[in-house]
């Protein structure tokens, strides 16, 4: 399974993270997104006319939407990451998968503006980002009332992975995460999962591992 990948892309990270959590090995093909704009090259446009990454190739299956990639990895290797049989759960997975595109547009847009100087109205992007974070926070509070720690269920699903990266990287776009206690606990729960991997800007929880031994030197 080949992933056209860029290390700093939160959407590519979604797929790498999902693969790691489900035990799938990806064949990573780095794309020079910046500064080379390779994702808009003729060869890449032949794969994805929309001119964006990630792109996932498996046999003749060619996917250009990260939510579809998460669904594919889960269906193939770990169906427990998909919605179960409850209609509410299925609906919530779809709800938050669709919602994740708003995170990409707002928080992702603010991040591209701040990091790669992409044109845009930063104040508007940040305001939309805050609105999206508040919606996620309220959703997680309500799930907490229902006794569930994750967006669609008491266990994590592809919906959580779809939302997590742009949320965790919100500070890159100048949007603070301090005001969201439920998001903080949810992020912590996701980063505690077996198979969790990092990307630049999203570090693992150091406290989950014992303190590394430091040889004592007599002075």
């Amino acid at each position, binding site marked *: 399974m080949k992933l056209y990948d860029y290390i700093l892309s939160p959407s590519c990270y979604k797929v790498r993270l999902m693969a790691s959590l489900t035990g799938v090995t990806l064949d990573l093909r780095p794309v020079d997104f910046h500064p080379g704009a390779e994702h808009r090259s003729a060869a890449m446009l032949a794969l994805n006319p929309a001119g964006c990454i990630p792109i996932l190739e498996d046999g003749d299956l060619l996917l250009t939407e990260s939510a579809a990639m998460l669904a594919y990895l889960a269906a193939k290797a770990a169906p427990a990451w998909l919605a179960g049989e409850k209609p509410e759960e299925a609906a919530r997975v779809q709800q938050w998968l669709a919602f994740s595109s708003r995170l990409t547009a707002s928080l992702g847009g603010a991040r591209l503006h701040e990091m790669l100087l992409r044109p845009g109205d930063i104040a508007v992007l940040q305001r939309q980002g805050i609105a999206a974070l*508040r919606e996620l926070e309220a959703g997680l509070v309500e799930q907490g009332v229902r006794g569930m720690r994750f967006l669609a269920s008491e266990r994590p699903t592809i919906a959580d992975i779809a939302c997590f990266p742009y949320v965790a990287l919100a500070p890159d776009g100048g949007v603070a995460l301090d*005001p969201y206690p439920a998001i903080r606990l949810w992020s912590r729960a996701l980063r505690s999962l077996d198979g969790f991997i990092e990307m630049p800007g999203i570090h693992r929880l150091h406290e989950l591992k014992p303190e590394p031994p430091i040889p*004592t030197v007599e002075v």
Partner: protein
Amino acid sequence: MLSDTTGSWTPVALSQDLPAGTVIPAYIVSGSIALWRSDSGRIAASADRCPHRGMRLSHGFVRGEAISCIYHGWSYAQSGHCLRIPAHPGLKPPETIRVATYVVEEADGVIWVAAGAPGSMPPGLDGFVPFRSLTVHAARAAIEDAAGATAGPEGLVDITSGAGNIRLLLSAQDGDRTLVHVLLVGEADAATRISASRTVESLRRTAEDRQEKAAAQ
């Protein structure tokens, strides 16, 4: 509100939002703080700034009974003393390396921090139970206006809605922002809690609208 003078209590967070072995950012009138709970459950509050390179300690991590800075791993005890500098394993950190700390009290599910030495304990919640906290981009007056009620001396505002009795505990933040702790009467059921959460979300929108309109005038 109790946060205006040194030596009084500020309700900085809810107990449920600070599990053992975690650190979170919080705010009191003297500035940003790192609020953390050790693995054994003890709470501490320090300035949110590592004395080494100024990194926020609330970005750090808690292991055992110490907090460590994410940048170079300097770790600190609850007393604020530096315990360990990983780059100098043989060095016992001098007494002078320490972070400023604050008095913390936890009562009825609310964590209170004092910038000085208050003469009394934090106020009780009178049978109300903490539910959730949210930040409102509006000052106290706009929130009172939206709630149709006035805050008492302890920063408490009662609102009545279809969701039953909701009590808000207000705490002023920097830049005309207010941290609002939502308290509910006794053991509210799930439907009541979800309805209360949505009621307070609406109240936030109203308060922020009024704040914006007042600022535009």
